């Protein structure tokens, strides 16, 4: 079977589109016009004690066709959202820009007017159609006080996904201005019953769940698996080119890996030996930890990326599930009910040095943060439902991220550790939400069907 992801998924695809294949996370081709290395990189600061105030008006239209006009507006809006996401800048609302005449070129930019609006950093982008399906996009960040350009980038690529230009520019600005690795080009994966399909040949009506992917902001949601069975708990490989997941497409659940940009059928790594669930990729991408019942009850195992070299990690008659790797790959946190109720434990990757992390009502789905944070997010029963909590491994203190608005489960960290994606029932059905690690900036990612167990690409 062949996964056909529409070519609109990514912008710089040229040769692969006709075959149904797409290149992964390419980013538009970058021809940077960075300042010479000898020049000091300028960082825009705001008023004392305040975040710098940024504005992102619509991009300048350099070719008058409707596609460019629409892209110019979309890129400005998406870039504004991307820069707001990490909360490094105060983003001046776009509806306050109306009084300032739109520039048609860089010399026309009315810096004094922007300064009157209290703007410290002004992003001026431009879009030009350079061929039937290609754009050239320039993005500059100006220090409004000095009117100097402090970031200058040029991107060339396809017209198919204008959002990717904005995402790439946002990551470049975060990196250059705040030394922050942005996540605007990362992706989410989750399982969903949104297509309302039923498992065939069952007596009782059973909804299928299939694996989906989406941009980090919920745009471009796409279905990956088409099996009319259960396909659940998907996780990204560290290179974001593959998804491992629990699939019931055979008679027993197996760990499958879909190399989603290859056009090849998924690989079955466990081959029907016992029941196999809940894969977790090692940070270097070479191994997968998962749960199997092949030796009688649920235990943790580690195998190579190709299914070889299986080793057993736990040996206990209790339930052991939900493995997650530490960023260094030396430890694994997991859920076990060996104390009588499901709690979070940490064990060395060689199976030694068991540490009990929680003693609460019911805890599950630990997710280890990426560096520099050293913490584990998990779901903890706090009433009829669950809330997301975060355990700081250095201080052994825990704090709560959600507070009883529906049930909040299955947390997953963004690549830079600054946000957590999770499933919540706060709006009624089960949906994926994203929330800052400080509890601010809640954003709903899915709106259709029920959606479960998110994971966030590196």
């Amino acid at each position, binding site marked *: 079977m062949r996964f056909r992801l529409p070519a609109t998924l990514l912008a710089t695809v040229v040769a692969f589109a006709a075959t149904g294949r797409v290149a992964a996370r390419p980013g538009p081709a970058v021809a940077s016009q960075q300042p010479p290395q000898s020049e000091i990189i300028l960082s825009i600061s705001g008023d004392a004690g305040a975040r710098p105030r940024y504005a992102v008006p619509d991009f300048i239209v350099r070719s008058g066709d409707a596609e460019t006009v629409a892209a110019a507006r979309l890129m400005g809006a998406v870039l504004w959202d991307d820069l707001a996401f990490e909360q490094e800048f105060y983003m001046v609302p776009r509806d306050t820009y109306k009084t300032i005449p739109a520039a048609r070129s860089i010399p026309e930019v009315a810096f004094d007017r922007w300064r009157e609006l209290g703007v410290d950093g002004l992003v001026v982008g431009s879009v030009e159609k350079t061929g039937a399906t290609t754009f050239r996009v320039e993005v500059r960040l100006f220090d409004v006080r000095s009117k100097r350009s402090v970031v200058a980038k040029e991107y060339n690529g396809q017209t198919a996904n204008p959002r990717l230009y904005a995402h790439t520019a946002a990551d470049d600005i975060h990196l250059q201005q705040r030394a922050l690795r942005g996540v605007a080009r990362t992706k989410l994966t989750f399982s969903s019953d949104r297509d309302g399909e039923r498992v065939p040949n069952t*007596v009782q009506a059973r909804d299928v769940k299939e694996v989906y992917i989406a941009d980090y902001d919920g745009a471009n949601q796409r279905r990956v698996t088409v099996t009319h069975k259960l396909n659940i*708990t998907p996780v990204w490989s560290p290179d974001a080119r593959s998804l491992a997941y629990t699939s*019931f497409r055979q008679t027993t659940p197996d760990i499958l890996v879909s190399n989603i940009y290859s056009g090849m059928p998924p690989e079955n790594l466990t081959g029907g030996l016992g029941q196999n669930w809940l894969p977790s990729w090692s940070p270097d991408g070479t191994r997968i930890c998962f749960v199997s*019942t092949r030796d009688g009850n649920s235990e943790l195992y580690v195998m190579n990326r190709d299914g070889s070299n299986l080793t057993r990690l736990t040996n206990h008659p209790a339930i052991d599930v*939900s493995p997650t790797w530490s960023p260094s790959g030396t430890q694994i946190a997991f*859920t076990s009910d060996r104390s009588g109720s*499901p709690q979070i434990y940490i064990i060395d990757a060689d199976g030694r040095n068991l540490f009990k992390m929680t003693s609460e009502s019911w805890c599950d789905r630990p997710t280890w943060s990426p560096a520099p944070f050293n913490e584990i997010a998990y779901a903890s029963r706090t009433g009829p439902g669950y809330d997301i909590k975060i355990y700081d491994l250095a201080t052994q203190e825990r704090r709560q991220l959600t507070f009883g608005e529906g049930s909040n*489960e299955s947390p997953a960290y963004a690549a830079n550790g600054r946000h957590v994606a999770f499933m919540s029932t706060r709006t009624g059905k089960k949906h994926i939400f994203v929330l800052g690690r400080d509890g601010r900036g809640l954003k709903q990612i899915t709106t259709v069907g029920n959606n479960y*167990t998110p994971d966030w690409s590196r």
Partner: protein
Amino acid sequence: MRIRGGSFGLLLIATVALLLGMACAKKAPPVARPVLPPGGAATTTPPPPPPPPTAPIRETPVSTAPALTDDPMTSRSVDDLNRDSPLKAIYYEYDSAELTAEARAGLDTNAGLLKRYTTWMITVEGHCDERGTAEYNLALGERRAVAAQSYLVSLGIPADRLRTVSYGKEFPFDPGKDEAAYTKNRRAHFVITAK
């Protein structure tokens, strides 16, 4: 069409009625069919009418063998059998795989059927209610299925006829959000996969 709480009740009644019907059918003595005389005389000579039934007197069947050939269990397809399965679902307490007395009674009944129909292959499905986390419930459902499987094996059913699978909380029987629904969802289902 999703099976909701109301139709679950109807289904139960229908299942019980059918089981009763089958039970009655099994008890009834086989009826001797009129045998055609040789020579194709059937077209002209009607067979003698059967003697009027003498209502209260029940004959003992000579052999039980003909009863089996009329057994609907053996003539029905696997899909048809599963539609209103003679194998009883059993139910569990919250976050538990312990077999209650009621669950063991249900398994005793199921074991009787599996001993009678020795070619049936069964998948024991473990299911959970929605209050646990999705991840842990995969293992809890497996623990429930294995508990039911082990009990059936202890009653003499060969383990290789009893495959287990856990569906965690992915396939609730009743989508309701109250204890009545949760009780129905914490279950083991017995699906006939071959006969």
